[in-house]
């Protein structure tokens, strides 16, 4: 941990030297205080690790509910609250309410903000009206609304300081992701991969809300902010028109590559990292080529937005394996060498370990043994297909073609993991990963594009892997060797963000509604409590009045709620299907609640 701290310190010092905003120094300092939780993942590195250790492997079994809070909203509750000093900020799905709660005064509501939004944005949100949380910076709370308005609220009063419009819901552009405050800017992505949106990440000025730069995922070099010579992919310059060359005609203009996941930041390198989503449509035959830079890890300069390196994980996607999952930044040793690493658990079922400075690919391995669409990534640097996944023809929907049902593909479009973020503990050097264990049939067919209308182009049917009786796993992963260290079966997909702590305990939620605590070393279950609804939120911890608390939003929904509510398709079962086909609706119902845990006095 010391090394990370040092790097962060150096980073902030460097930032000062070039005269950058002091807001960021404040934020870096705040993120190092384990009593607070000031950014979506707890820190810029997206580790979701807390140094708090009052709750530990020995006493976590005694955990009890300290207080609860109803959000008053029924839809799927993703993300988690922020804690800044004595105030907790809780967000909700559409209509995107924000509550400021006074932790020092009986958890009273200090202020509440509820935007007025056109309800016509609701059905444009592909998979529930989720929101993945708030950001803090310069005394402001940043909210990314469903209608794409980015709003800065005075953290003390809830008054609107500024508002910026990031997209147009009438064209299918919506907001679900959390923004990230980096130095004097707010970085935010956009959703709409099922509506043919040309997606982007945009930086706004933290003081005024004025747009500073915008970088698209596909299009001409100036739009995607790639330098043909200086921007590299696997160590080589990308060359001119690296994106345009990989699309047929103008398809890139409705090419997707959405940016609805998480953003990380390395202050020492001054680089931001995020992934882009699926190319539009889901029918691969309608978009010949690699469709760059969809399904790509982007490493960009935080000030200018220019890409330093890119890596496309799933060229020419045939399965909807969005690349938006979080990039976790760690400093570890590989073969005795100190490396600045980026670890990413992709929807496509492969976990990537990369050098985050150079973009060199170090490890790419399956983190669910059932993954079958690829036989692995070509790791031979001299091979013409270096860095590309080898696609198994039997599971290629491009190979099968339009109107042909390709069966038994693992993972399903949900991915081996979706947006639910993993955690990393520097104590164990392990990653704790919530995963899906679901396969699918996928049949692409021709669709036509209408602005603001779904643009899907494939029929899906999902089910557990043959012979399996569960739909999820919670695993511990070694990113240096690319191996699973331990794996706990879960009845349903694990759709909750994990939390690792210095107490040697890892927390996560389940779709039935359990908050679970497991031993970081062994995975042994130490505690569970069933909250009022299924959990798709991320677990958070903070300290107030000398006491450590663990908080999580429950409120079932999201894609998990849509796909699993009635149970997966089992042609042989009637009502009351069990095991791998169990219906989530038999375990839990809608309702947003924050549940906060602590040890007894």
């Amino acid at each position, binding site marked *: 941990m010391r090394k990370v701290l040092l790097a962060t310190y150096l980073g902030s010092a460097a930032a000062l030297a070039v005269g950058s905003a002091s807001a960021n120094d404040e934020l870096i300092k705040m993120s190092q205080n384990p009593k607070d939780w000031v950014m979506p993942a707890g820190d810029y590195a997206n580790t979701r690790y807390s140094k708090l250790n009052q709750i530990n492997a020995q006493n976590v079994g005694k955990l009890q509910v300290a207080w609860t809070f109803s959000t008053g909203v029924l839809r799927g509750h993703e993300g988690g609250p922020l804690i800044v000093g004595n105030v907790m900020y809780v967000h909700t799905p559409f209509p995107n309410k924000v509550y400021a709660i006074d932790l020092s005064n009986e958890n009273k509501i200090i202020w509440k903000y509820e935007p007025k939004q056109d309800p016509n944005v609701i059905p444009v949100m592909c998979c529930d009206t989720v929101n993945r949380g708030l950001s803090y910076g310069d005394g402001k709370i940043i909210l990314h609304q469903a209608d794409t308005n980015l709003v800065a609220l005075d953290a003390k009063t809830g008054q609107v300081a500024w508002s910026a419009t990031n997209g147009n819901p009438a064209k299918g552009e919506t907001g679900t992701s959390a923004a990230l405050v980096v130095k004097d800017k707010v970085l935010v992505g956009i959703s709409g991969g099922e509506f043919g949106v040309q997606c982007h990440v945009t930086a706004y000025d933290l003081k005024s809300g004025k747009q500073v730069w915008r970088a698209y995922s596909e299009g001409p070099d100036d739009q995607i902010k790639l330098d043909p010579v200086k921007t590299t992919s696997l160590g080589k310059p990308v060359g001119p028109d690296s994106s345009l060359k990989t699309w047929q005609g103008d398809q890139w203009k409705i090419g997707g590559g959405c940016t609805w996941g998480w953003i990380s930041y390395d202050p020492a390198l001054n680089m931001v990292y995020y992934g882009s989503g699926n190319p539009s449509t889901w029918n691969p035959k309608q978009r010949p080529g690699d469709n760059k830079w969809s399904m790509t890890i982007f490493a960009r300069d935080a000030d200018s937005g220019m890409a330093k390196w890119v890596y496309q994980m799933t060229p020419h996607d045939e399965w909807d394996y969005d690349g938006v999952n979080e990039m976790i930044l760690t400093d570890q040793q590989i073969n005795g060498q100190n490396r600045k690493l980026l670890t990413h658990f992709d929807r496509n079922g492969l976990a990537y370990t990369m050098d985050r400075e150079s973009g060199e690919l170090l490890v790419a391995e399956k983190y669910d043994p059932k993954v079958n669409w690829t036989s692995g990534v070509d790791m031979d640097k001299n091979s013409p297909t270096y860095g590309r996944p080898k696609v198994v023809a039997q599971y290629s929907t491009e190979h099968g073609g339009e109107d042909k049902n390709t069966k038994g593909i693992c993972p399903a479009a949900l991915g081996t993991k979706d947006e639910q973020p993993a955690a990393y503990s520097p104590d164990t050097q392990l990653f704790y990963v919530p995963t899906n264990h679901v396969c699918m049939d996928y*049949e692409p067919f021709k669709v036509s594009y209408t602005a603001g209308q779904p643009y899907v182009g494939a029929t*899906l049917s999902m089910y557990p892997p043959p012979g399996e009786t569960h739909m999820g796993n919670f695993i511990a992963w070694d990113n240096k060797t690319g191996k699973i260290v331990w794996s706990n079966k879960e009845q349903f997909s694990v759709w909750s963000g994990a939390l690792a702590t210095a107490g040697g305990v890892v927390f996560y939620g389940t779709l039935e509604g359990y908050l679970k605590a497991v031993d970081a070393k062994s995975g042994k279950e130490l505690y569970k409590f069933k909250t009022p609804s299924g959990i798709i939120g991320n677990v958070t911890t903070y300290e107030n009045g000398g006491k450590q608390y663990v908080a999580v939003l429950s409120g079932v929904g999201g894609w998990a709620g849509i*796909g699993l509510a009635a149970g997966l398709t089992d042609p042989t079962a009637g009502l009351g299907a069990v095991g791998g086909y169990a219906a989530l609706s038999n375990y839990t119902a809608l309702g947003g609640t924050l549940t906060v845990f602590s040890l007894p006095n």
Partner: protein
Amino acid sequence: MRKICFVIAATILFASGGLAIADGPGDPAAVKKEDDGKWLDKEGNPTYKISADGTVDWFTYSGYRRYHSDCHVCHGPDGMGSTYAPALKDSVKSMSYGDFLGVIASGRKNISTAQENVMPAFGDNPNVACYMDDLYVYLRARSTEAWGRQRPAKKEEKTEAYKKAEDACMGNK
């Protein structure tokens, strides 16, 4: 485009009575087959035809496919519903064919202090609007459990008349 226009006209004709009427579609028995392969019940509304050996009519098969592209992302697999939107296999039990077309073409809003359910209008989305009868027939078969939670393995072939109408509606050359 012709089909879309027809559908919107149908919407005005049928949906003007409001959606409060909870009349189901009645006896699903197929009595007549159109040139495009569509079966009709005795009221003249589209219905399914499933043979003893499990062969489904083209519309049931096509409806299955279209449902699991554009509808299931909100309404869940196999018309079973989700945490986000109602189970259409149940919805079609208490709505007429005309109401069904009306809701797809024009959308609907069900907003209260507790719920914010909004269905978009698909009238100008050919991927949906050109296949409303297909969707209806499939969901009607699901509503009576005449067809279960599986993909139809055996089907009647797509007819020339259907192909022609589909191409015209989708704007294919």
